[in-house]
């Protein structure tokens, strides 16, 4: 057991930290924040992604030949932590890097690699994910969006949902049904769809927090060249499963944990300062019990991720560990957000924009956003199935 970093890893961290210090605006995260307007925020994040690319901080895990740094797992963990610590904006092109790019790297043709990878790493082309459908949520394999081959084209018809940032994306990485007669897991394929193709329409879906990160995306006779098929026709499910295992690993959790810990720090700051009838909030023993549990759970998020991280470093396959991590952080973060509102008393309802709101009303937004944690990226029910069946070996 050893929590120290090699000199090389330490240098990597310092290099990134130094770069972030110059790349982010002065006062970032303290007095300067992302634009509130969604369109402006998109532009801001797009610019940030390009800045990341120009500093060679995009797709650091990709091989050097495709513009990456071939970063080790530890470096990826450091990257996630430092980005979170600096409160850096979230990347708009996560799907491009983690899903589309990773899949093309592993399963794409050389022509696809040459065509698609450079603009991803340069953050010149942004990607959205076409996986879920209104009737294929937890049951992803029941995707119905059809792609029928006609000559050198697929004609795509159907509807996708939860296509984050579809409105800002040039490409969609889509799971479509190419064989309607095969058993449901067997007739799926991956297509790379140009979002400027005729026949695509997008309807934004607002979330309960009021933001519109997600969309419904409709495909009506959309033509996709056959060379945009990734891997073999009807082999999409297998590819999806290997790719998804990389989506939510311990690196992701390490970054999130830093951000949750920043929330918790803010809560402690409020509790230590906010007066009550006999002291400050942090003097209240009942408040302290709630804080205590949140402190422990937020720290446990990090430790659970580090365990998994260490196992992967030691050569273990990425398996249901990712589900354990995701199930843990999502509920622990929800409990922290519940505790925060619990603790704030009557001020709990005051939100961003109110002079009396605590910590600028951030807890209210976080509370609302946190409700999605146990639903997106595989609901908790699905994670529990995966853990039960694949990790514990319980029967289906």
């Amino acid at each position, binding site marked *: 057991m050893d929590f120290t970093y090699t000199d090389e890893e330490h240098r990597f961290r310092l290099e990134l930290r130094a770069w972030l210090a110059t790349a982010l605006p002065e006062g970032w995260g303290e007095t300067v924040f992302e634009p509130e307007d969604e369109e402006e925020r998109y532009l801001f994040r797009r610019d940030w992604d390009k800045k990341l690319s120009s500093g060679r901080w995009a797709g650091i895990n990709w091989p050097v030949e495709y513009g990456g740094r071939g970063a080790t797992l530890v470096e990826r963990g450091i990257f996630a932590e430092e980005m979170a610590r600096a409160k850096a904006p979230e990347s708009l092109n996560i799907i491009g890097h983690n899903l589309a790019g990773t899949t093309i790297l592993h399963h794409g043709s050389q022509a696809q690699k040459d065509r698609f990878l450079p603009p991803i790493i340069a953050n010149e082309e942004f990607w959205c994910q076409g996986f879920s459908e209104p009737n294929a949520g937890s049951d992803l394999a029941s995707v119905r969006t059809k792609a029928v081959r006609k000559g050198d084209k697929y004609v795509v018809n159907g509807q996708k949902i939860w296509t984050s940032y579809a409105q800002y994306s040039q490409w969609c990485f889509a799971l479509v049904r190419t064989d309607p007669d095969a058993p449901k897991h067997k007739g799926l394929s991956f297509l790379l769809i140009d979002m400027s193709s005729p026949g695509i329409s997008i309807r934004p879906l*607002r979330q309960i927090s009021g933001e519109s990160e997600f969309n419904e995306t409709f495909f009506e006779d959309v033509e996709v060249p056959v060379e945009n098929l990734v891997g073999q026709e009807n082999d999409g499910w297998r590819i999806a499963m290997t790719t998804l295992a990389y989506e939510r690993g311990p690196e992701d959790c390490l970054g999130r944990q830093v951000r949750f810990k920043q929330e918790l720090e803010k809560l402690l700051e409020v509790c230590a300062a906010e*007066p009550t009838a006999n002291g400050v909030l942090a003097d209240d023993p009942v408040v302290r019990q709630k804080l205590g549990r949140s402190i422990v759970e937020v720290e446990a998020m990090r430790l659970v991720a580090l365990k998994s991280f260490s196992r992967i470093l030691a050569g273990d396959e990425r398996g249901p560990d990712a589900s354990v991590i995701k199930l843990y952080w999502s509920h622990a973060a929800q409990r922290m957000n519940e505790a925060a509102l619990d603790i704030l008393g009557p001020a709990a309802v005051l939100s961003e924009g109110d002079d009396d709101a605590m910590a600028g009303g951030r807890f209210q937004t976080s509370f609302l956003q946190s409700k999605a944690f146990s*639903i997106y990226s595989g609901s908790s029910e699905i994670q529990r199935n995966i853990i039960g069946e694949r990790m514990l070996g319980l029967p289906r």
Partner: protein
Amino acid sequence: MNFLFNEEQTSLGETVGQVLADHAALTGPDPSRGSDAEVWAALAELGLFSLLVAEEHGGVGLGLVDLAPTIEALGAGLAPPLIASTLVATEAVNRLGDAEQRAQLLPGIAAGETAIAIASAELGRGNDPVFAECGLHDGRLTGRKIAVAGADVAQMLLVVTRTQSAPVLALVPTDAPGVTIEPHADIDPSAGLCRVTFDNVAVASAQLLGEGSPGALDTLIDLGATAQSGMAMGIAEVMLKRSVAYACEREQFGKPIGSFQAIKHRCADLAVAVEAGKATSHYAFWACSEDAEDRASAASAAKAYCGEIACNACNDAIQIHGGMGFTWELGLHRFLRRAQVIEHAVGSRAWHYERVVAETLAAREVA
């Protein structure tokens, strides 16, 4: 021995529920306050505000327990909280007002012309709804209240304040000089929460409610806590019904999701919680109506427990609805938001559990 509502009580609740349902925007995805005035007018026309007022003042003379299903319907329908607060204030005037105050206030209330917002919460006092910084000295009221639901459209404020020696309740017109009302930015815009500032506001002795009565503040807390518990259970019950309906209809893996134990058992646990919460809330309504010995304990039990159940019910409903659950369009967030308003009104969960214990230990010492 009968712990059920009679037909009149039940149908009153149903009628109010139907009126609210006519105003679909109340539970729609958009939390703004467009239809508040119409809803108020419709309920006033129905005679809602006359129900608790004695016949001699132009009312019907019902008791609080008669309105329990109605207040649940107000919660379920996400009615503006000002409606329930006016009912609570009406009952407070009934109980604590002197003959003159009753004669002056109740006819206007009964007619639906006097909406009363209750100003109790303050910043900087933790979760304690009792202790007030807001002070009344030499007939002048100074201080600041937060989260006062509907203050901006109410005619009257019922203010928890204190003199040097004791807490008092003051009735202050919203247009009195020195009163400033600003809407909050908050988690539930539809609740109409406001910040109310009193700057040296003149308060005559005739404006004090239950002056000198040591239990006046407790009475207001018990009535308020009970009403909030009813609204909480209204929300919880809607969340249960919508969850069950969705679980029957939504299919995944070739089956309605309600056939999976993960969903079925969650609905069952929620149903049990709704049953327990409603029983606890209904008992509090009865205890308030009857001024039962355990009124304070029953009201605090209901507020703490039902608030918790409503918050959990919203979480359950969102989870059961999956991806749809966290869309704006489906509108479940409206209930989640309102449940937070209720949770933090009239004292937090921890404060009320604490009060239950204090009451229970005190009762043991007496016994």
